């Protein structure tokens, strides 16, 4: 029977083992630096937000060759699907981390991103949010969560200021408005921000009604009929993609042509919307986080995007997903390691000036939020997206009031 003494390693074995470890160490380091960073990309790839998730993935895919050209180390995606479901988002994030993701990015939707943030914080794996506006996500004191997207308050503030600029420029303003918003995490937080700001910022109109609806609604006829009954001159929506198409169809069917339809959310600038609605999707203005067309990297991204995805407009989904990949690669480069702690510290010290989005660049405050990002007013024009406000870098004249549905060529 072996004794404890017998099981002790001999001095010779210890020395040989130590020598072996010392010899192997440089190779281990070399492997860590040479291996790509494993990035869990959590997106709604199916379900009601499936098309949007697929646009986001295009942004991530566009990033890979560009990051290589910019001299960043290689990153490798581990794509997973939330199926547009918050509970599923939580489960797949846990799974992708378990499968070896060293950093996580996503998840387009505020509700799903809230779940991701909880999981990543608990597991100590950094999360780089591509798109999610609900302010509470970065107000929880999380150490591993970083958001490069304007929060709901900033989107609401810019939406009001951009509208004021538009109406002053056109010397014509609506007298009353209806706010029609989805009742999910994003929609509710944006509504709260808007209503709070309307108390402080003087606008030419008041809300005649505020109508909430289910983003998965099959039918929005009642919502539009109710909004139409107020006689409002402005319809302000906070929507998703499928409901944006439903809303537009109902506006036409119910023969309601307000002076303007503005949106503070996704949907109206999405490629599927533009292709499905055609001329009926024209002249709607989205007041959303956008790219700065004057930045060199923006021009390069647009050029590469046009080659990779001919006929598709590069939009918010592409831009912020591209930047999320950029942030991951940049942190990996500076950390020199895929260790989550080192990646976190590198993310906290991010300072990227060569970027795409509106604002001075990418840097995070103590809460992990990039507060310098701005928004623009984008108008749909013949299947293209034109910047109409701020006038400082607009590329088109705004069409306002928008032509009635039955007066379109």
């Amino acid at each position, binding site marked *: 029977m072996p004794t404890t003494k017998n099981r002790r390693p001999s001095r010779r074995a210890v020395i040989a083992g130590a020598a072996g470890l010392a010899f192997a160490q440089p190779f281990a380091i070399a492997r860590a630096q040479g291996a790509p960073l494993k990035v869990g990309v959590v997106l709604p790839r199916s379900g009601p937000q499936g098309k949007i998730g697929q646009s986001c993935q295009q942004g991530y895919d566009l990033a890979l060759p560009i990051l290589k050209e910019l001299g960043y180390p290689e990153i490798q995606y581990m794509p997973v699907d939330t*199926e547009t479901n918050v509970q599923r988002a939580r489960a797949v994030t846990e799974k992708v981390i378990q499968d070896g993701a060293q950093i996580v990015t996503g998840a387009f939707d505020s509700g799903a991103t809230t779940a991701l943030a909880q999981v990543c914080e608990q597991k100590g794996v950094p999360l780089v949010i591509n798109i999610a506006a609900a302010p509470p996500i970065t107000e929880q004191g999380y150490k591993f969560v970083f958001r490069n997207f304007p929060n709901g308050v900033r989107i609401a503030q810019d939406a009001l200021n951009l509208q004021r600029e538009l109406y002053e420029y056109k010397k014509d303003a609506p007298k009353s408005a209806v706010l029609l918003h989805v009742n999910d995490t994003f929609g509710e937080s944006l509504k709260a921000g808007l209503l709070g700001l309307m108390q402080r910022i003087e606008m030419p109109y008041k809300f005649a009604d505020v109508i909430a609806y289910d983003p998965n609604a099959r039918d929005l006829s009642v919502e539009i009929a109710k909004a139409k009954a107020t006689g409002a001159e402005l319809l302000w929506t906070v929507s998703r993609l499928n409901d944006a198409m439903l809303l537009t169809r109902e506006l036409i*069917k119910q023969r309601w042509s307000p002076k303007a339809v503005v949106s503070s959310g996704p949907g109206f600038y999405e490629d599927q919307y533009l292709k499905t609605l055609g001329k009926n999707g024209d002249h709607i203005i989205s007041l959303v986080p956008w790219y700065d067309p004057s930045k060199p990297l923006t021009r390069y991204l647009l050029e590469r995007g046009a080659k990779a995805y001919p006929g598709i407009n590069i939009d918010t989904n592409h831009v912020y997903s591209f930047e999320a990949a950029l942030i991951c690669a940049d942190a990996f480069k500076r950390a020199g390691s895929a260790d989550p702690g080192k990646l976190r510290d590198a993310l906290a010290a991010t300072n990227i000036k060569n970027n795409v989005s509106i604002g001075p660049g990418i840097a995070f405050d103590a809460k992990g939020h990039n507060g310098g990002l701005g928004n623009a007013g984008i108008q749909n024009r013949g299947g293209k997206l034109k910047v109409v406000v701020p006038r400082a870098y607009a590329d088109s004249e705004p069409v306002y009031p928008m032509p009635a549905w039955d007066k379109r060529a």
Partner: protein
Amino acid sequence: MPLDAIANIATAGLLTGLVYGLSALGLSAIFGVTRIVNFAHGELMVIGMYGALLLFQHFGLAPLWAIPIVGAALFAIGYALQAGLVNRLLHAPEHMQFLLMAALAIMLVALCLMAFGPNAQNVTLESAYDSVEIGVLILDAHRVYAGIAAIAVAGLLFVFFRYHPLGKAIRACADNLTGAAVVGLNVKRLFALTFGIGSACIGAAGCIILMLVDVHPYLANTYTLLAFVVVIIGGMGSLSGALLGGLLVGVSEALAGLLLQPSLKSMFSFGLLILVLILRPEGLLGRRS
């Protein structure tokens, strides 16, 4: 609130309710005769929607004209399901039947995902933006066509069950299974026929609903749940109850959306369901068991 707005919304709710009723007719017909609770109801409807979509994409056939073809295809699927699968579990405990139908539902969703992908698809008809003006009413043309088609299909079903010898035989099975078997009716074949007819009805509803809603594989759950709400309110197994239930749900959802908040619409249909379950558990037009 202007009266014309209320009239418009109530009428739109009525038309939507007719389509809800039609979508639930198949479920009610199948349960009324075979006592099988079809948990794959919504999935069969989605199959019908995809059938109409394919006919539109490849042959330019509008969904309303696709009803006979899709109806026939769904009849064949329903008949085969009952004859080949469900009939084998007729005398098994209810939970086994539930599991069978739930499994079938999951398989159909997976099949749709493999065949058509996860994205929403629709038919883009020239009439998609048309509306019909009748006095103060401005009605969505597609909803009007859908309502008329729903009445026509429901009418055909009523006539079949009331006057056709096969319909009478099926009703005999529903009334007294043992008696029907004693007088020599082939009960299993009649059950398969009923499942086929119910499925054809579900297929027709799918064609009609495709004009109003984009189709994707995950849509099925919503319509299964909705059909259950409608038939429980109207009375499980009662065809006229299914139509009444559909109308009540459609109108109550529309008016709740108008007078309160649209996001509370579903709360009202489920509230109605709870009220019926408490006050008249057999449903408004159902028979006491």
